[in-house]
């Protein structure tokens, strides 16, 4: 087996890994990305594709805003693939008074923290923009410019432009051991032995396993499979991505007229065998809410249900930063809301690996925050 020497090795071909590979390669770094299956095969390729700043944990907003800067100029980064991002507006409505109170409180918190992207709007505004809505709302939170993307295509886009900038991408390449020597890492894989000065762990639901192989922190990462359904094609009635305050629902209508309904209802995942379950009845409440918002959706036929394996952290915030071991960096644990963050995380990780200061603080995502 030949030894392949690299400056930087990224483990994991999801959006975080591919975006990191892209930013590093663009800056002329010698970078290789290895993926145990295929690019975008798991959560990054099969998520709902929500590109939203709305509803983010306040600690996560700066990262989300930084990522949005990249999304808004995506064409400059990934070219043609950018057409698979569809900006519109994102609306999270309150369906009762309790929801309204939570929403108003949220709007107040945000404005106190100085954020202006997410605002409260009243029902008349909502009805005017969504004339097909079947129910009055109690107002809602709105972000202009948030939207949705075809996730697999975006990941593919970052992978392909990374390659164009000289990154190597190797699929079907599972890591079996990670050993730290004086100033380099030796990585044993299904496709031979690699050496690298820096290793970036973007292995999603499998990332805690990679950390364990590297003798890094023990991460309390859990794997679940958030479920989604897509319906048959229906007349266009929904020009926004929608959610409901205090409920797990995300709802959008694709250009084909198909509705995608999800929102993070989790099913069982077995990452060791790449298997995730779907249990449709768990989605019944989401379906009920969706049909309440638009009665037309009740008649739509569920064409497919799927799920992808995702890694969750106990505080629902990602791990981004340096590991315990020198030359090891982490970017995982996005707890089912990492797709929009991807480009921002890629940029920040590229900064970190190159010894530069990222443009936003990563303090809230410190890898050692669960170490007693």
């Amino acid at each position, binding site marked *: 087996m030949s030894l392949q020497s690299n400056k930087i090795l990224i483990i994991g071909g999801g959006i975080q890994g591919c975006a990191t590979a892209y930013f590093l390669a663009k800056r002329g770094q010698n970078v290789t990305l290895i993926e145990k299956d295929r690019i975008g095969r798991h959560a990054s390729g099969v998520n709902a594709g929500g590109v939203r700043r709305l509803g983010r944990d306040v600690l996560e907003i700066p990262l989300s805003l930084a990522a949005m800067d990249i999304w808004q100029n995506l064409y400059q980064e990934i070219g043609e693939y950018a057409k698979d991002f569809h900006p519109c507006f994102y609306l999270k409505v309150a369906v009762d008074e309790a929801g309204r109170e939570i929403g108003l409180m949220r709007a107040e918190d945000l404005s106190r923290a100085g954020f202006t992207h997410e605002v409260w709007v009243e029902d008349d505004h909502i009805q005017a923009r969504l004339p097909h809505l079947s129910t009055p709302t109690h107002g809602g939170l709105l972000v202009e410019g948030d939207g949705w993307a075809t996730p697999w295509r975006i990941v593919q886009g970052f992978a392909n432009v990374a390659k164009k900038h000289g990154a190597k991408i190797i699929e079907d390449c599972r890591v079996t051991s990670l050993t730290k020597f004086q100033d380099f890492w030796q990585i044993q894989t299904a496709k031979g032995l690699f050496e690298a000065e820096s290793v970036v762990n973007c292995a999603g639901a499998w990332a805690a396993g990679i950390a364990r192989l590297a003798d890094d922190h023990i991460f309390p990462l859990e794997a679940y499979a958030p479920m989604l359904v897509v319906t048959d094609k229906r007349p266009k009635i929904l020009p926004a991505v929608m959610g409901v305050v205090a409920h797990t629902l995300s709802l959008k209508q694709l250009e084909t007229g198909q*509705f995608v309904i999800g929102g993070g209802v989790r099913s069982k995942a077995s990452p060791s065998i790449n298997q995730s379950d779907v249990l449709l009845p768990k989605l019944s409440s989401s379906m009920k809410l969706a049909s309440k918002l638009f009665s037309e959706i009740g008649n739509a036929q569920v*064409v497919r249900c799927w799920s992808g394996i995702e890694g969750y952290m106990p505080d629902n915030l990602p791990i981004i930063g340096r590991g315990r071991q020198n030359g090891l960096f982490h970017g995982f644990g996005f707890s089912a809301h990492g797709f929009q963050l991807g480009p921002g995380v890629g940029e920040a990780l590229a900064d970190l690996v190159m010894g530069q200061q990222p443009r936003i603080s990563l303090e809230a995502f410190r890898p050692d925050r669960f170490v007693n």
Partner: protein
Amino acid sequence: MSLNQHYDLAIIGAGPAGMAAAVEASKNNLKVLVLDDQPAVGGQVYRQIDKNYHNSDELSYLGEDYWLGKKLVDNFWHSSAELLSESRVWQITRDKLIFFSQKGLAHQVQADFILISTGAMERPMPIPGWTLPGVMSVGGAQTLLKSNNSGVDGAVFAGSGPLFYLTIWQYLIAGLKIVAVVDTAPARLSLHHYLRAIPALLQLNLLLKGLRWKSYIRKNTKYFSQVRKVSISGQFAAESLSFIDRYGESKKLFASHIFLHQGVVPNVNLTMATGLKHYWCPRQLCWHPETNIYGESSLKGVFVAGDGSGIAGVGAAILSGKTAAKRIFQYSRRPPIFSIFLSKFKRYRHAAARPFLDNLFRPPKDWRVPFDDETIVCRCEALKKADISLAISLGVAGPNQLKSFCRAGMGRCQGRMCGLTIQQMIADHNNLLEKDIGYFRLRPPIRPLTVGELASMADENVPAK
């Protein structure tokens, strides 16, 4: 959630295998539920037999074999098995929870044992023009006879296989006019075929019946054998069918109704989505769920019977349903003593002609993969063979990855129309065997389910008897 009812045995599909199993299991006092998606029991073979029986003199063209089903259906009605009709099962979990929808509401039931007897489906025949209005499957043509007691006058039949000849024979006896019969079977019999025919003599009756149909068809229709390059054309609907006859001459027949058939394959969507292991059957060119002689699948407590476990015909289906029910009774009430040899022999006898028939009517590749680049392969996403070839050439390893590249198989038919064709195309491109390519990863809901039905599970509701 709906009421969680509990049964000893739940049977999916009230065709010959499902009904036979229900009768047998009820005899042994098992609490049995049968879920069937049609308004009337009988499956494909005995479709609408209760209704048609009152009219059996007028409908004699359906043939003796059809009427034999009446006894089984009567036994089923006399059994204690509960039937929920118009119930579409869209998910079975490993814990043997069954989810189904019926009349706009969704429900769940729990069973100790599950028997999946969802039968077969026709193998699609993707030739140029196969998606035009006016083109139907031969099974569809037969359904018209059984459900509506009517057929189509002036159609062309193209294809081969037992159901092909049977249906044409039924059309002729019913007095319907047929423009022509275009037989796609490669007619030359090899030594291989003759060797296969020896055990088939155990089912001599069946063979003779087949020969009788075929000779009747030859005498009473314009019949073309050993044809190649069949294609259908028409601007908005089927207008004509062209082909090259056995002498190498191009022929064109005008008809607005064209019925196609290339045999049947197990309907594996439910068994695959339930996570049962499957294997590729090179003789029948399709996937079969792995079962033992009793029909037990790789998932404990889940059985498969009838053509859904491999095409073997109605006699074998009834036997397999009974065998599975007996085995389930043994598991639930007393230790197994059933003779494996006896059941192996019975099974063999009921399917003795199958290897011969499989070989005789094995569809050549031209009928499984379009010979023309412009022919639609994936109907739901309107993808031509050329679109799929292009995606495959980008380095697609299997049908599941192909979905990401071109959306093939992601529509509402869930790959029923394109799955086997795509699998073959990927195998050919990579020079691998079909069994190494694998099939679409199938996921629930495997039957039509509306958002409203799924939403109804958030409330209490009770299925209609």
